[in-house]
């Protein structure tokens, strides 16, 4: 318990310090603070996207390769509502709800498959959406959709928006981890059949989690749209966002509420520094880091701070057969 306590304090210090810096950053007018703000803005967007993936992938072990679907839908929905004249926060919220609602029938399709088949099906859905949006100009605008100026336009506005949303996503993940719902999810992740046998409503749990996950992903996409103010299907439905969600969560800390935040920071820094030099070089580096993490630090970078057991549940990569799965 001693070790736990000090680890907790360490974590709180780190988080508190970071939070303080993040909140006050825009007020300090250093020459590079504008650059840092955009790196952080992207990091926050990826955090939300990563969290949305993490709910399903980190706990319930449903590895989705299709989160770009929610990202893209959220982006376009937000743009749509903004273009109708609704204020930006309302648009974002509505978009989140709308995409979450759409996720329900999608969930029926996806959850009929398990394991790698689930992954393939999610990929298929995301790609279908991308192609359909590309093909149909009514949905995507003949040259993309422009998001009008709103109260979040301008670096500072969008920075605070994404900061709040990212913090909220961490909060949701944290709260979920401690709730019955979260426990049910983790049980499903450990052994789906056994969970069903002891009375967990597997389908319902997965669907409701997908609901939240879709909403979060949509908000991430919406924030992205409000930031870049220009959307094209090949961009927002790109499989890269599905990958970003996965990278960010696994590298940061799969199943841990702070995991995606850590991963997103690393991701955003690498992207902003490497991409201008060599396009997509950051994907190469991140792929290598991902592989390294999965072999060396399976529960992600957060373990450097929290120790190799996450609070409350070991939500790491399950080793089949030879090794024993760690119990909380």
């Amino acid at each position, binding site marked *: 318990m001693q070790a736990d306590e000090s680890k907790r304090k360490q974590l709180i210090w780190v988080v508190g310090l970071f939070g303080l810096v993040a909140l006050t950053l825009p007020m300090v007018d250093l020459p590079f603070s504008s650059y840092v703000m955009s790196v952080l803005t992207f990091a926050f967007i990826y955090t939300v996207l990563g969290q949305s993936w993490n709910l399903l992938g980190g706990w319930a072990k449903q590895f989705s*390769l299709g989160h770009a679907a929610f990202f893209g839908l959220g982006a376009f929905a937000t743009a749509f509502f903004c273009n109708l004249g609704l204020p930006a926060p309302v648009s974002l919220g509505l978009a989140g709800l709308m995409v979450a609602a759409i996720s329900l029938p999608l969930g029926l*399709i996806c959850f009929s498959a398990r394991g790698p088949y689930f992954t393939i099906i999610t990929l298929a859905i995301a790609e279908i959406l991308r192609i359909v949006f590309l093909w149909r100009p009514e949905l995507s605008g003949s040259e993309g959709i422009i998001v009008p100026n709103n109260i979040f336009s301008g670096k500072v506005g969008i920075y605070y928006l994404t900061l709040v949303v990212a913090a909220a996503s961490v909060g949701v993940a944290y709260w979920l981890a401690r709730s019955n719902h979260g426990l049910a999810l983790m049980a499903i992740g450990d052994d789906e059949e056994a969970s069903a046998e002891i009375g967990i409503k597997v389908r319902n749990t997965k669907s409701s989690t997908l609901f939240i996950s879709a909403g979060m992903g949509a908000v991430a996409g919406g924030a992205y749209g409000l930031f870049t103010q220009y959307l094209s299907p090949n961009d927002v439905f790109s499989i890269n966002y599905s990958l970003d969600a996965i990278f960010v969560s696994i590298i940061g800390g799969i199943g841990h509420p702070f995991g995606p935040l850590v991963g997103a920071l690393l991701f955003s820094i690498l992207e902003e520094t490497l991409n201008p030099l060599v396009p*997509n070089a950051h994907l190469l580096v991140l792929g290598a880091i991902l592989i390294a993490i999965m072999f060396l630090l399976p529960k992600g970078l957060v373990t450097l701070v929290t120790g190799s057991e996450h609070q409350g549940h070991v939500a790491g990569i399950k080793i089949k057969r030879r090794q024993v799965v760690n119990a909380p």
Partner: protein
Amino acid sequence: MDYSTLAAQLFLTGIFLSSLYILVTFGLTMIFGVMEIVNFAHAAFAVLGGYACLMAVTSLAIDPFLALLPVVVFMSLVGWLTFDFFARYTLDLGDSHVVIYYALLLIISNILALIYGLDYKFIPSTLGYTQLQLGAVKYPLIKALVALLSLASVAGLSLYLKFSVTGKRIRAVSQSKESAEIMGIDSLKIRRITWVIGIASAGLMGALVGLVNPFSPYAGTTYLIVAFSVAILGGMGSLFGTIVAGFIVGMAESLFSLILPSQISPVIAFVLIIVVLMIKPEGLFSRA
């Protein structure tokens, strides 16, 4: 153009597409059958084979069809190395291995992009645009050769699996690893051989495609989806299923190209995947 010529054209295109799809999926489904690994990076190896062929042709100045031999040797080597230094350690990961193989796909694609750039490359061939005359139908000679080679490779591999000792061992491990081990089969060695065959055949397919279509480092993703739809439709792990499904998907794509604009055609493969996974996830034929 009368309907019989049109039908003949569609049929030939269907055969052409099918032959390539079967070849690339063969390795994918074999690897899954023997090792339970969904190799998301399979298509990247195919693209790698394409670039290897290009290199062989430009640096050795030989005919691309001759270059296929060194390409297969090279890709076998690549397979060997990737197994011993990578794939071997992923065998116990369980469901999360899909992510790691996707990372591998990214790494290979982006290394290729770094070396060769993003523009589309073509493997030049002396056969050029020669057309074959088959009755009333004209068909490009090079496509016919590519299709023939693909089908021959698949036939060769099938015969190998059916009649050779190693082939039988591979099928044994695919059916049940534990039983095969009890019988004295070294499952690690068999997995290695399976992986090498899988990667080499993927590379061969990539090289053959490169002769006909321009390719770029990221072209792999299109083949990946088609390969998956064929593998899932046929039943992951079933080689006969792959052949049947390959023909179905190839012919379907050829037919649909009449009605649908070409941008939409990938959607068919995706929808097929979804439908199959929802109705009969084991595919047409379960593991053989």
